[in-house]
């Protein structure tokens, strides 16, 4: 392991002092936009554009991503106040052992993010290869896109393995590319197709009623749920960044707007492309742009953006794992957090991004609900020694029963309201209230009540 990485792990285990804080509001905004604008936003927008027309898809993408961030935005304060990493600040709500389970959930659920970013690279790369008339094996979706996705994961792993300096360099490069991609594409959308025409288009694959008419309440709820899933998904990622904030306000606003309405513009863009080409994959639209040069540049930029996203995911995941289990070698930490993602890099998983997002809405929504409930009770005021001491928030054999019961009950409520696998609502409420945001409130309210009843707070 390089000295740089050793230093980062070391740094991750210690509270960050005020003099070590480097990020103000604008720094936050820039970094969160770069981290935010990637496969996850392009794809969620694409799926939204498959079921809703532009006049509804745009507000759904913006509201669906922004509002969950607002509901849980106070999470940014915990790590900024104590300089502690995300999962140290989870101990008061779930107990030390309960938090270990959340670390496991965080790592396992992130395989999906790595897989989607890699496969979007695969999708763009095989189309690029086809343009160049390269051999079928790398110029077809199966196995071409899979091979390219594997390559993306391995390159992302390698960048993460090399440590923070090379990663920062790639992030900066990626930021320029992402801005160029978005600006160029938006220009094309407006200039070539025209907004009036886009707004007149109907979605190509909405959920339908038995008579074949679109089931609009279900389409609204489903599209909202996918976007809410992405909005809540940031719940696991606050601490890694906000512990470097110069003020709590910078941490609060930087994450709220950077991951929210600003990064969501990528989702708006792909929702519009999905309406035009009838595919959730924005690379299909790029290919259909027409000229070889523009397609080539667009696909190349998409590829670089997604590889950087993989690296930007693998690195903090490896740092978290290495911080929790220091005896693991750096190379093993990188492999553990990323290699299993290869198993789900295929067209079937890629087309199931909406289902993945509903699971993410479930997991992160209830996690955020409990953390917000705790803030309402305590205003985030703790003894720092208790946060760092493994037995500091020990409760019942390492588990805060209030947090655990609230999380389990909210999970049950979510699955009762929306079953992501069967795509049905057992209580019939999904098309009226959706599931992610109500489950967030169930977790929050239950946690507050249980903490009072059990006299934990």
């Amino acid at each position, binding site marked *: 392991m390089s000295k740089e990485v050793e230093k980062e792990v*070391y740094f991750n*285990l*210690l*509270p*960050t*002092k*005020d003099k070590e*804080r480097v990020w103000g509001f604008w720094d936050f905004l820039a970094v969160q936009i770069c981290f935010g604008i990637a496969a996850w936003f392009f794809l969620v927008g694409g799926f939204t554009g498959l079921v809703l027309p532009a*006049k*509804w898809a*745009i*507000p*759904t993408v*913006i*509201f669906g991503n*922004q*509002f969950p961030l*607002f509901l849980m*935005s*106070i999470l940014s*304060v915990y790590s*900024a*106040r*104590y*300089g502690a990493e995300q999962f140290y600040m989870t101990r008061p709500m779930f107990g030390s052992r309960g938090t270990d389970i959340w670390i496991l959930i965080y790592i396992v659920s992130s395989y999906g993010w790595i897989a989607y970013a890699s496969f979007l690279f695969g999708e763009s790369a095989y189309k690029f290869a086809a343009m160049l008339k390269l051999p079928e094996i790398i110029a077809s979706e199966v196995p071409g896109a899979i091979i390219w996705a594997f390559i993306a994961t391995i390159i992302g792993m390698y960048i993460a393995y090399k440590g923070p300096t090379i990663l920062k360099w790639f992030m900066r490069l990626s930021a320029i590319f992402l801005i160029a991609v978005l600006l160029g594409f938006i220009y094309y959308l407006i200039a070539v197709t025209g907004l009036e025409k886009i707004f007149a288009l109907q979605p190509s694959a909405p959920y339908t009623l038995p008579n074949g008419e679109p089931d609009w309440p279900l389409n*609204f709820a489903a599209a909202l749920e996918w976007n809410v899933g992405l909005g809540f998904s940031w719940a696991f990622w606050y601490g890694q960044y906000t512990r470097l*904030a*110069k*003020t*709590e*306000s910078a941490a*609060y*606003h930087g994450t*709220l707007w950077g991951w929210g*309405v600003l990064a969501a513009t990528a989702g708006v863009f792909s929702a519009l492309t999905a309406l035009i080409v009838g595919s959730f994959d924005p690379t299909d639209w790029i290919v259909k742009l027409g000229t070889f040069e523009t397609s080539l540049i667009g696909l190349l930029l998409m590829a670089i953006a997604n590889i950087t996203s993989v690296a930007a995911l693998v690195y903090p995941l490896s740092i978290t794992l290495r911080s*929790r*289990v*220091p*005896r693991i070698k750096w190379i093993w930490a990188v492999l553990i957090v990323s290699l299993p993602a290869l198993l789900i890099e295929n067209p079937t998983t890629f087309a199931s991004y909406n289902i993945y997002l509903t699971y993410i809405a479930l997991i992160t929504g209830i996690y955020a609900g409990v953390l917000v409930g705790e803030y309402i009770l305590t*205003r985030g*005021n*703790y*003894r*720092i*020694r208790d946060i*760092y*001491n*493994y*037995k*500091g928030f020990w409760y019942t054999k390492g588990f805060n029963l209030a947090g655990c019961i609230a999380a389990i009950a909210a999970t049950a409520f979510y699955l009762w309201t929306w079953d992501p696998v069967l795509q049905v609502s057992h209580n019939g409420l999904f098309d009226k209230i959706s599931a992610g945001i109500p489950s967030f409130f169930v977790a929050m309210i239950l946690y507050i009540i249980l903490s009072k009843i059990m006299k934990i707070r």
Partner: protein
Amino acid sequence: MPGCYILLKGKVLFGNFSNKLRLTLYFLKNISFIMLNDNKIEIPYIKDPELLNELETRIKEFENHIQERVLKGGDGYVPRIKKRDLIIAAVINIIILVYYIFSLLI
């Protein structure tokens, strides 16, 4: 905390009544001091003594200069979030909510 138990079990439980009272009062008055000084950082998965020392130093520094202020609702390492931050966020998000509801209705 182990120190508290020794104090209670060794002296309070086996001493005479005035000793019990005196030591109980002493314990109650100094509970935070006892907690802070007895409760050494223990993280089973970290063995590096240099890292644990640095952690202990930082935590003591926080306890000596910041802890009291935080518990009273003041700043932590950095300035605390203000009410106006929450109000700004609430206002903008309510506008977005209204925009969303309005767009669905038309």
